[in-house]
């Protein structure tokens, strides 16, 4: 019911706003929380395309990386202004998404996925080969985030967390707004049955293209924030395994639920952090985790919760 959802949303925001405080109590550290928020934003953005429009991109790391390098290159070479750098990162991602989206929007299914992988690889390739500009395999270093006005996001981890949370909130708000609008409803219709949507006169390709652009742009923002968090730009952020990580977060948390990807990101980041300290074979466990989720929990954590709680037609899925 609406009541349930509002409670759920309020609870979620409460948890997020107080995160720097309770992280210490559970034996964690602030930077981990910030990382969860950023990767959660990336997963949420991917899910705009995947869970709500029904289109699988396995190359989103490319746009993440454009955001990363956009910020890094701007601060290092153009102007040491954090906000301007973020803006550049987002704009670069936006432009790339517009162009590439136009190229691939006609493809479908597995072929579409393969092409997104291939394009993702092209950007990775540019990042680690264009040595003079991007620093190549060594990454882009020698720059750092700078205070934004009176906000000391440089040494104060908490301020940095809330800075990131601010952008997260804005992005999430916009995406939620779009999904609630007629445009968002159309996307869901396309997800459910593309052919029928086409018969209804909906310009399917156009809608997919727009959804693609929105999704990629917010992923770029996440990438830009990630660069600020690390004070580093790294070609690895564009690799296909980074793309795969975003997808698994989305699936793990629940593709059909709005907050699912954030939950998935939290679980995955914490799990990886914990496992890699515990054992050097953490990669096997993560791989095993992927396998188990796919085989036994395809609806994801929130997907399972939604199933068990009463949901008398809350209009979440268009049918």
């Amino acid at each position, binding site marked *: 019911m*609406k009541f349930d*959802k*509002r409670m759920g*949303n*309020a609870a979620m*925001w409460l948890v997020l*706003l107080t995160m720097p405080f309770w992280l210490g109590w559970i*034996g*964690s*550290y*602030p*930077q*981990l929380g910030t*990382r969860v928020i950023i990767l959660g934003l990336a997963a949420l953005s991917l899910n705009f395309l995947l869970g709500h429009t029904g289109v699988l991109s396995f190359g989103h790391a490319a746009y993440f990386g454009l955001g990363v390098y956009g910020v890094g290159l701007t601060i290092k070479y153009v102007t040491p202004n954090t906000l301007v750098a973020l803006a550049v990162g987002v704009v670069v991602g936006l432009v790339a998404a517009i162009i590439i989206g136009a190229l691939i929007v006609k493809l479908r299914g597995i072929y579409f996925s393969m092409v997104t992988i291939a394009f993702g690889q092209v950007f990775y390739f540019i990042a*680690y*080969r264009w*040595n003079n500009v991007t*620093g*190549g*395999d*060594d*990454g882009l*270093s*020698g720059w*750092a985030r700078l205070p934004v006005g*009176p*906000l*000391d996001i*440089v*040494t*104060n*981890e*908490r*301020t940095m967390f*809330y*800075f990131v*949370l*601010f952008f997260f*909130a*804005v992005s*999430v*708000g916009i995406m*939620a*707004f779009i*999904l*609630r609008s007629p445009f968002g409803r159309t996307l869901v219709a396309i997800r459910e049955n593309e052919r029928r949507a086409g018969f209804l006169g909906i310009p399917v390709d156009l809608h997919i293209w727009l959804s693609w652009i929105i999704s990629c742009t917010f992923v770029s923002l996440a990438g830009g924030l990630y660069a600020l*968090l*690390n*004070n*580093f730009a*790294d070609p*690895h*952020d564009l*690799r296909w395994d980074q793309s795969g990580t975003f997808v698994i977060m989305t699936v793990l948390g629940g593709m059909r639920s*709005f907050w699912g990807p954030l939950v998935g990101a939290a679980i995955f980041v914490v799990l990886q*952090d914990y496992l*890699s*300290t515990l054992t*050097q074979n*953490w990669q096997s466990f993560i791989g095993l985790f992927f396998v188990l989720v796919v085989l036994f929990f395809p609806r994801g954590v929130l997907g399972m919760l939604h199933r068990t709680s009463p949901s008398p037609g809350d209009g979440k899925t268009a049918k």
Partner: protein
Amino acid sequence: MSDFKIGRRSILKGAAVVGAAQLVAPRARAASTEGPVKIGLDDPMTGTYAELGKNEQIGCEFAVEEINKKGGILGRQVQLLVEDSTSADTGAAVQKAHKLIDRDKVDFLLGNVNSAMALALGQITNQAGILQIVTGGHTDAVTGSDCHWNVFRVCNTTRMETNSVSHTLLTKYGKKWYFITPDYAFGHTLHSGFQASLKAANGTELGESLTPLGTTDYSSYLIQAQATNPDVIIFLHAGQDMINALKQAVQFGLDKRFKIAGAQQELEVLNGLPPEARIGTWVFEWYWNQPNVPHVKEFVAAIRKRTGGKVPTARHWFGYVSTWTCALAANGAKSLDAKKMARFLQGYKLPPEIALMPNAPFFREGDNQLMPTLYVGHAQAKGTTDPEDLFAVDIQAKGAEVALPVSETGCKMKWPA
């Protein structure tokens, strides 16, 4: 519409909290005063550099054992915390560094094999005011343009490596060189170093092939190299790339027609090559077979016990020396304050039982770079006295003599007030 309303409200909420958070003072990082002294190792345990990271870890663990037997640091026991930085994901390395520093409150940070990660970690440790010893990243920037007062390095700069072997190549083999360079900072700086040597001796660079990292097939580059008919083909690779390149060079019979050489070489690589491909003239940063240097035999024996019989490599030594440096700095400065320890280490000479090489190595003032001995020699398929003796040392170069002077490294060290 409810989602959007809540979104807008919490934006305002968020802004208010951010405003309040400014009032909280930025975190200060004081040295620990009780419990064990913690040393954090942020090194790759998975991926391409896993073997190197693991070997460094073994060296660190052995050092910790020795340190604790001798009374620890300032009377407290030492504990080593190991985190996997991964080989390629700098974000993970950064995250682990924060974990070690913020959550585990380590007093020292060791790492990383990967040059890019070493630089990224340097920024973090500099911010937190903690002593960092770079165990294996070779890019010159670590003690050059990106140097920090709290960051020390035990492995060589690329310039030190090229300068030590150039003389041998120029006098024994000839002055016409062809370069096969891996396309990243490490390869480029090695190339520049050799170029400088060539220029000083009126030699000629016949050409250069830039190979992408992770290249599996070197045939087209080797075809080009041999077409120029050089005296020496110089391979500037490391790790897996070096193995692939050498294997193929030998398969093509190029070692019979030209001299093969390069700068940095490691025992891990020679071990990974089939015997017929163990060729060429190289520089080692430390070697286990030093019969005339005291204490080395004991070190080799001790590490052999921990590796199931295999001899230590330079990586074991890096880990060992890095960890011991922490103990020596703290005990010497009688404090865990990073500034005091860093000051103490300026010009500090390592004692022979830690140095394990001739010509006492020391940390150079002004760039915090260790000045060790470099071992120039040639690879061999199998040792005469020991099957693991895969490298025959011909010349030992003094690090201080082959390094660039501090003024030319680009290091402008800024000490805190």
